[in-house]
């Protein structure tokens, strides 16, 4: 376990999350993918904190946790709204800007 392996793992998780973000059509699925990405970022913060140089990494990881919680709350509220107006939660339904 070194800093490099941690970073590689985190990069892998991030890419997987991005994949989900680009391919999921269900709004909740998109939120899940975002969680994976935020989690990967957090792993980076903590790893840098552990391997010297960035002692405030843990504090930032905490902030990221708080931010994602806020994001999930708002995200799910939007999902509810989407569901109520379209009777479904596929994000490509929300394309009113196109018209």
């Amino acid at each position, binding site marked *: 376990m070194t800093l490099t392996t941690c970073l590689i793992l985190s990069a892998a998780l991030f890419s997987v999350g991005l994949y989900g973000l680009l391919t999921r059509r269900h709004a909740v699925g998109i939120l899940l993918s975002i969680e994976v990405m935020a989690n990967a970022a957090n792993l980076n913060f903590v790893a840098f904190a552990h391997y010297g140089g960035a002692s405030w990494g843990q504090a930032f990881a905490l902030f990221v946790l708080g931010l*994602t919680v806020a994001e999930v709350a708002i995200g799910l509220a*939007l999902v509810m709204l989407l569901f109520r107006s379209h009777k479904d939660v596929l994000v490509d339904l929300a394309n009113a800007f196109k*018209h």
Partner: protein
Amino acid sequence: MTFTATMIVFALVGALAFVGSIFTVRSSKLVHAVLWLGVTLGMTAILFVQLGAPFLAGIQLLLYVGGVMTLMIFGVLLTKRDGDSELKTEEPSRERGALIALAVFAVLAGTIWLGRDALQRTAVPSLGTGWLGTSLLTRHLVAFEALSALLLAAMIGAIVIARRRDPDQPSEPKES
């Protein structure tokens, strides 16, 4: 290079986290995806313990696995259509996503590879939870307060957005 118990645990946990993330984004049943996300997050919590951040691990479990996941479950179930939550992703967008994801991973891995010399660091002992708390209320005070304001705003915002409107006010947007 000798294999230590720490390394073995890291390899196992890391692999599980990765597998979990794969299933999170690929699972066709959304409920399974949520549970796999739980696996990923839980494994990350174990990694946090290994990286000298047990407090973060506890918070991760408490907040993410306990809170966010349950919210997601609610999100899935409250928006379920006719009893099935199986939603196939659109086929054409898959290759595109894989391409982008691989490209991002390549860029990140390449960057890490280029900087591998600078990344040769030894672990420093953690400053402890007490230090973390003190730094939150001194050095990062403004960020901390901003975060609390953000959470409050998010809470109010979520309530306002998700609240059921009066039935006599049509909430349906007009189809053009």
